[in-house]
């Protein structure tokens, strides 16, 4: 499912969300002009709070949401935390402009493999698990505007490291992506107007979104159980009043059975267990043990008791 065929990312993401094929994407930017191409392409609408006050500008569509957090460490950390606390993102992208000490042309997309929090003096290493065609390098985040010559790192900005450290508190590292777009080389920072920034970000969004959806699609995979199977498993869990651990064990047994015998047999066995009446907790335990044993037996991998 390549976006090159249809660059309408909004429709793409909405269709696939309905089929539960790709998870919810969250985007965090510092400035509104950095967010515009993503808001447009992902067909997002501004969220208006019922109380009339939102600490950060937020946008949402059926498959994505976005937060404009503002510049600097406090805004980056507070904005990301506020956004992620809403639990509306399974993957998170921090995108924005950065300065470059490398001889890279304006508009180049950068995927930092080292993030330096210059305020705290600590370094974090993002997971570099995905194949890409962007430029890699080290990026340092400063709490103030700097000139390129002031730091020895390849790239510099005011948010990425602060954002990444905050995001790590909420999401697994492999689902947090930081991408920066070269806007200047320190000395020429004054020449970056709103209009120029919008143009740079527009071009970058065209490269970033298809890549991002492709890796999200590739690394999400098929759900373990189809809708009917999931409903049946939930019904068995409720009927047998299974504990959390028992539920996980049943899922594993059901998944093994499904892989080896197909879905029909699994559905038949689960159906047999949704209307059983129970008189005691012990009875539930006996039924659960019998059910998981039966499911494992059918995998052909059931251990031979010695």
């Amino acid at each position, binding site marked *: 499912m390549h976006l090159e065929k249809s660059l309408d990312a909004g429709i793409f993401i909405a269709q696939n969300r309905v089929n539960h094929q790709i998870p919810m994407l969250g985007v965090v930017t510092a400035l509104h002009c950095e967010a515009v191409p993503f808001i447009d392409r992902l067909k997002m609408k501004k969220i208006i709070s019922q109380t009339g006050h939102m600490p950060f500008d937020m946008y949402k569509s059926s498959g994505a949401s976005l937060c404009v957090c503002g510049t600097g460490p406090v805004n980056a950390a507070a904005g990301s935390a506020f956004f992620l606390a809403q639990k509306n993102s399974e993957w998170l992208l921090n995108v924005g402009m950065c300065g470059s000490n490398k001889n890279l042309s304006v508009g180049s997309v950068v995927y930092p*493999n*080292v993030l330096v929090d210059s305020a705290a003096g600590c*370094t*974090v*290493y993002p*997971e*570099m*698990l*995905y*194949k890409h065609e962007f430029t*890699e390098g*080290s990026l340092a985040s400063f709490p103030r505007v700097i000139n390129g010559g002031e730091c020895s790192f390849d790239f510099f900005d005011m948010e990425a490291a602060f954002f990444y450290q905050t995001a*790590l508190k909420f999401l*697994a*590292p*492999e689902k947090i992506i930081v991408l920066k777009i070269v806007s200047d080389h320190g000395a020429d920072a004054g020449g970056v107007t709103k209009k120029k920034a919008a143009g740079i970000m527009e071009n970058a969004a065209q490269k970033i979104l298809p890549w991002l959806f492709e890796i999200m699609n590739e*690394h999400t995979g098929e759900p373990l159980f189809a809708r009917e199977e999931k409903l049946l498993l939930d019904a068995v869990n409720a009927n047998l009043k299974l504990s959390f651990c028992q539920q996980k*064990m049943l899922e*594993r047994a059901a*998944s*093994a059975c499904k892989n080896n015998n197909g879905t029909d047999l699994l559905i038949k066995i689960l159906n047999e267990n949704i209307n059983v009446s129970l008189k005691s907790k012990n009875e539930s335990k006996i039924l659960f043990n019998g059910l998981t044993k039966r499911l*494992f037996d059918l*995998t*052909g*991998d*059931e*251990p*031979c*008791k*010695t």
Partner: protein
Amino acid sequence: MQNIIFSHIYIEEAAQKFPLTNQIATRLKNSRIILVKHYKDVFNKPGQNFTAQKNSPKLILAVRDSKYLTEGSQNCDSFGHSRFFYATQMMNCLYGCEYCYLRGMYSSANVVAFVNVEDYMDAALREDAMYCALSYDSDLLAFELLFNYVSAWINFLNANPSCNSLFEVRTKSANFFAVEHLTPPKNLILSWTLSPDEIILRYEHKTPSLQKRLDCIKKAIGLGWRVRLCVDPVLHVGNWEDCYFKLADKISGHIDIKDTEGISIGGYRIPVTFYRRIKRKNLSGLIDRLPLTELDGQMQYAAGDDFCLHFMRRLGIIL
């Protein structure tokens, strides 16, 4: 996921000056190099996803500054030696065996290689006579084309004939060709772990086939190397007894056990903490199905059985 074997190499600052570091970086010239202060900054990061990293592992080159030799676990066979040690020159492995304890031991699937090999060798020389497992938390021979660790040890042992310890390199690899031109040291045993083809196909991902391992063993014996066979762990899954008896037939059809240092057979066992971590993170679909019970801090098969005797009988070792 990235296509090349290690898309990124993290090099610890202290490891930069070692020749092996440059050698490896040159061999992996398409990999991106990232300098780190300490290898644990990358290896011990919180929240790592073992499965995702296993699909795209990174290499970390580091320097070990102490504990070159560690006393071995009681769960491992010391083959009658009172002093059993192991050397952790690498952490993690290329292979993806579903039952491997490393899945529960480390939070990361990235591979750490310690480049100060000479320090390990000096430590081995200082020790009294011992049995030392060199390929313990990894498979050194599998990485031989990249790191040359096994060759380095062979050269070291040949150059120090007075070293009265016995060393073992355990492997599933078919990379024997990488060391076959060297003179076999008298105090080094190459041990191959053997499993039935059904187990290899299903649970020992990315490992060479049984036939390839047997071919290596045959060749090594022919060239005068000391070789041990290890049927360890025996996995009680499916019709395991038939599979393992077929394995015994295949082994005896290819190799004369009398030409080897012996055969080691062991049931599956794993420390409880590792077992729980593997289950909690759902890192193996296999260990759920093994009939394990907790005993003395480790998960192992409930009762002893006479499988070992049957297996040896099948091999023709005992009548």
